């Protein structure tokens, strides 16, 4: 398929080349500028005023950002762990088994992806407004984590399903023909094979949890913040250089997750090549 490539020539090629360069410039220039300005010694967030680490120091000293960061990490870890287990089980059930209600389940699993953030936020706000009262749940950690799991399961299951779909289920059967129990076959054959998919799903879930503003803002309780919601609140009150520094910290966290996902992705493609 990719053997014969119609190579654009001359002016067309140069135009396309220039355009692609511009696309990358568009993608990266804002991010790079933000990083530069986070080291700028000027109260105005977009003006260079010499190098300083003051804003990072302020970030380190502000208890508001520290608490919010810690909350984000905890919520991210718990919601990722739960959604990875539930999402992987769902993916296995949908790819490998037929059962009653399968089609309904499949559709239900797609909905959280299609539905706009704002709508999902409204849904969960109304739901927790009632439920929290009935069951005595305090809004905050619990409600945010439960909400993040609700949208992460779908993304995890899609990534794991993509991995399972490209896999031969004869391998597991072969293991069982060799008198492996169902669990052993899963543990030693299927699980290692779908591991890159599970890791990819986990990183996606973590990213989504650390990114979410709208839903978290709706289901959180008074005085309870995650880092993005905290930053969003700060931005709305007016930009300060502190926000530049916090943003760069969040940027580095996402970049770290991208790097991890690229590594697992590489493992995935080298696996399938053999």
């Amino acid at each position, binding site marked *: *398929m990719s053997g*014969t490539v*119609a190579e654009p020539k001359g002016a*067309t090629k140069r135009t*396309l080349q220039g*355009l692609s360069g511009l*696309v990358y410039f568009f*993608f990266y220039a*804002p*991010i790079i*500028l*933000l990083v530069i*300005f986070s080291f700028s010694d000027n109260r*105005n967030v*977009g*003006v260079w005023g010499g190098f300083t680490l003051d804003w990072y120091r302020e970030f380190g000293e502000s208890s508001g950002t520290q608490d919010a960061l810690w909350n984000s990490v905890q919520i991210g870890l718990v919601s990722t762990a739960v959604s990875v287990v*539930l999402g992987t*089980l*769902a993916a296995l*059930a949908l790819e*490998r*088994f*037929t*059962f*009653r*209600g*399968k089609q309904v*389940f499949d559709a*239900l699993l797609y*909905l*959280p992806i*299609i539905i*706009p*953030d*704002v*709508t999902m936020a409204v*849904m*969960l706000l*109304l*739901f927790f407004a009632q439920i929290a009262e009935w069951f005595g749940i305090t809004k905050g950690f619990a409600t945010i984590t*439960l909400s993040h799991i*609700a949208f992460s*399961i779908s993304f995890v299951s899609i990534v794991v399903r993509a991995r399972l779909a490209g896999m031969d289920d004869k391998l597991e059967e072969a293991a*069982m023909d060799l008198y492996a129990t*169902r669990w052993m076959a899963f543990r030693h054959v299927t699980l290692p094979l779908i591991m890159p998919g599970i890791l990819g799903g986990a990183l996606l879930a973590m990213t989504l949890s*650390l990114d979410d503003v*709208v839903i978290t803002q709706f289901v959180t309780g008074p005085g309870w913040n995650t880092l*993005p919601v905290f930053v*969003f609140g700060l*931005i*709305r009150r007016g*930009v300060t250089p502190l*926000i530049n520094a916090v*943003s760069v910290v*969040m*940027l580095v*966290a*996402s*970049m770290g997750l*991208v790097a991890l996902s690229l590594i697992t992705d590489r493992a995935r493609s080298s696996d399938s090549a053999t």
Partner: protein
Amino acid sequence: MTTLDHVVGEVATPEFEHANEQLKRRRGFLMALPAYAYLVVFFALPLVFVVIYSFATRNRFGGTDLAGWNLDSYQRLFTDDLVGTILARSLWLALLTTVICLVIAYPFAYYMSTRPESVRNLMLVFVMIPFWTNFLVRNYAWRVILGTDGPLSQTTEFLGLGPQKYLFTSTAIVLGMVYGFLPFMVLPLYAAIERIDHGLLEAARDLYGTGVQSFRHVLLPLSMPGVIAGSILVFVPSLGAYVTPEILGGAKTKLLGSHIVTQFLEARNWPFGAALSFVLMAVMLATTIIYFRKGGRTL
């Protein structure tokens, strides 16, 4: 359970086959059950809450009376001028964002698909990085760039164009959304174009088709699934956008997403907010279902 499987493996009588089939069904159901139950409780049930609230009435204290169902909130969608303006603006800006993304992404995705595989993969990685990067941060970066005395206005002033107001305009919102959602357009387009046999394009040229003709009659029709998938992936979040208009837009450029949030966090008119978000969701679902019905499956 396992012993039964082995028996079936040896003598596949109809009874055993049937029993095995039932066992597999039960096992599949049990595996799906945790996620299934979770989504029913924390997704389907909340969805029902939205529908119920959209028929309820706001009382004088900003609370909601669930008794006495009515269609007032839905009626207001058609009679409230502000809602009409906001809806029209949201649709227009979402459409504009989608078209701009398409125009930028198409030649880019095409160019990417003509590169050698190693270059192609590297180009793809550098599209994926912004895709994974925190959305709030990426929007905030534009706030810094477009702000008063920010890099952009300094540049225009340097060029003698005078100070311009960029922030808190519709242009800023569209810019932010294009920036945020462009990877959603590039990735499906690239997937569709990469799959096309480029020999077909050469054949079109061999048969004396011009560049424009071979684009119109060969490349574009064959990449249509990618165009549609990308457009939906950009249009849907643009229509419901909340973070971008809040950061880059102003009071005069309010969009649907922000208007819904206002109903809950400020105006405390939950029934009306529920009706608005129900309509938003219906539009999204309709768009997506039409897409799947039309046979496109490459999301």
